[in-house]
């Protein structure tokens, strides 16, 4: 099957990703841990751009950029340096952004995605390092703003800007690319995608192989897909009506799901790039072998290994490797000797589904337990122990609990306020299959053997019920719960 791309759609992405796993900002020692902090508390003279201050580059920034470059199978520049991009905006404290221009640290990479017609290669034009501006809070809407508040806590956080070739042929492919890219970055441990503003995307899109339009600053993968769907429809309709698509920049209004024109090419800024005189150029070719050593097993390789090693399906392997922490969790559970296939089903099919239903994002894994955070409300945290999953899968595999009961155990742990093991929950809720089966059996026997008592009870003699319960207790040697036994008999006789 070859995808024809009937509408001649070309999509290219520019993705800004925060290296929020680094301890400090790009050019100063301010902490990157600002997400729940008061405004302007993670700033210093350098990231505030006070006159007289100078930048000094965080070495880990370069290591991380090389790591990303290698993971994208790109070329690492022999010599690279920083430029100033000059423009005025209130979030930009120096009146320029330190970024890279004609010699980016990474060029010519690629990512393989699951495309419209199977595996599809998306070229990476370049990836470079730059600093994040501060954050603006508009009082009122952008159009009817009364004023703007500025928080420079974000100012100077390291960004990796990655630019792709216009190789994606549908919004779905764009979304898949972003998922894969994020997945790789998380594997590299340079990026926590759960933090607000951690990944921002600009999308270039054209139809019928025509002029491209840029849609700026979309903050979610779902948003990118929606923005592209809208923009493609808009462009097709402009052309259908005999209009022309012009080079322009548009803004995606997340609420309304539409794109709005920001500026045309004629009004384009002149950034007056020149080399940053306060930073020295870099020659980092020597570092490459050592950085390569630190590269983890990447998603595709891990997926193949999972299929091979654990004998699981491609679909399960895909789901399990979609997050490195989930993959690690899975392997830790398997390491305890439980059946990998059963485990894959429970984690990939059930457990992940329950997480998604609760909007819980995987946020940590430490060999003992996997942690989550609510994507909308960071106050809501939770975790699930490796030992819990091992216990649960074991009970299920031994036929002691039903699949319905196992699901209930997972839900109870995810929703529970106190820490409980699966066994505790099974006992509390009486979910053990063997026990309940025994009681049901005893009930059935008792009813069959005591026809007179049954008739009496049905005729209204309540005392006969006590007799029947007593018979069940006798049969089960007192292990059955009398109340449960009574309920089962009533249910059996009265329906």
């Amino acid at each position: 099957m070859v995808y024809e791309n009937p509408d001649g759609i070309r999509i290219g992405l520019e993705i800004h990703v925060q290296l929020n796993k680094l301890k400090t900002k790009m050019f100063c020692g301010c902490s990157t841990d600002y997400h729940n902090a008061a405004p302007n508390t993670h700033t210093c003279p350098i990231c505030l751009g006070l006159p007289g201050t100078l930048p000094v580059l965080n070495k880990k920034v370069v290591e991380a950029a090389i790591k990303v470059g290698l993971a994208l199978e790109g070329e690492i520049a022999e010599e690279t340096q920083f430029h100033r991009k000059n423009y005025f905006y209130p979030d930009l404290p120096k009146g320029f952004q330190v970024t890279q221009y004609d010699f980016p640290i990474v060029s010519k990479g690629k990512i393989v995605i699951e495309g419209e017609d199977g595996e599809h290669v998306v070229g990476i034009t370049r990836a470079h390092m730059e600093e994040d501006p501060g954050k603006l809070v508009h009082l009122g809407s952008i159009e009817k703003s009364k004023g703007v508040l500025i928080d420079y806590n974000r100012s100077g956080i390291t960004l990796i800007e990655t630019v792709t070739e216009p190789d994606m042929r549908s919004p779905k492919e764009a979304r898949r690319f972003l998922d894969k890219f994020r997945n790789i970055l998380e594997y590299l441990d340079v990026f926590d995608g759960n933090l607000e503003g951690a990944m921002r995307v600009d999308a270039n899109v054209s139809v019928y192989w025509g002029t491209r339009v840029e849609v700026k600053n979309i903050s979610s993968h779902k948003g990118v897909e929606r923005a592209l769907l809208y923009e493609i429809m808009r462009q097709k309709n402009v052309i259908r009506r005999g209009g022309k698509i012009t080079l322009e920049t548009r803004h995606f209004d997340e609420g309304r799901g539409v794109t709005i024109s920001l500026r045309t090419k004629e009004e384009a800024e002149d950034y007056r790039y020149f080399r940053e005189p306060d930073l020295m150029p870099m020659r980092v070719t020597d570092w490459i072998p050592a950085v390569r050593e630190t590269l983890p097993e990447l998603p595709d390789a891990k997926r193949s290994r999972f299929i091979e090693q654990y004998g699981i399906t491609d679909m399960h392997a895909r789901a399990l490797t979609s997050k490195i922490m989930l993959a690690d969790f899975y392997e830790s559970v398997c390491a305890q000797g439980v059946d990998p296939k059963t485990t894959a089903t429970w984690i990939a099919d059930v457990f992940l589904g329950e997480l998604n239903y609760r909007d819980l994002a995987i946020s940590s894994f430490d060999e003992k337990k996997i942690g989550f955070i609510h994507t909308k409300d960071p106050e809501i945290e939770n975790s699930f122990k490796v030992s819990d999953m091992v216990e649960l899968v074991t009970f299920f595999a031994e036929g002691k609990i039903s699949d319905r009961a196992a699901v209930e155990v997972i839900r109870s742990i995810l929703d529970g306020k106190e820490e409980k093991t699966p066994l505790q929950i099974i006992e509390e809720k009486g979910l053990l299959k063997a026990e309940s089966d025994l009681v049901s059996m005893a009930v059935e026997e008792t009813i069959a053997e005591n026809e007179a008592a049954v008739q009496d009870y049905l005729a209204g003699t309540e005392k006969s019920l006590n007799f029947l319960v007593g018979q069940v207790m006798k049969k089960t040697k007192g292990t059955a719960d009398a109340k449960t036994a009574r309920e089962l008999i009533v249910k059996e006789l009265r329906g």
Partner: protein
Amino acid sequence: MITKEDVEHIGWLARIEVSEQETVEYMDKLNSVLEYFGQLDELPTEDVAPTYHVAEIFNVFREDVVEESLPQEVVLANTEHKQDGYFRVPKIG
């Protein structure tokens, strides 16, 4: 030679408001300086590499170690235009 429009354009790029009358004044003075700069044209430099830094140093880095940030009140001490710990400015466009 730069024109009045050029002065207006670079005034906008540099975010410096230039009045009608100043535009002409700047245009004349800027042109006399640019004319002087024009003497560089006579020097052939096709095969000359540009010098960005006089010292040929590479790879200057700092370690990824947290240093103390400034207290919020110090950060905001140099302006009256602030609100709830933020800097406050007029709407952007």
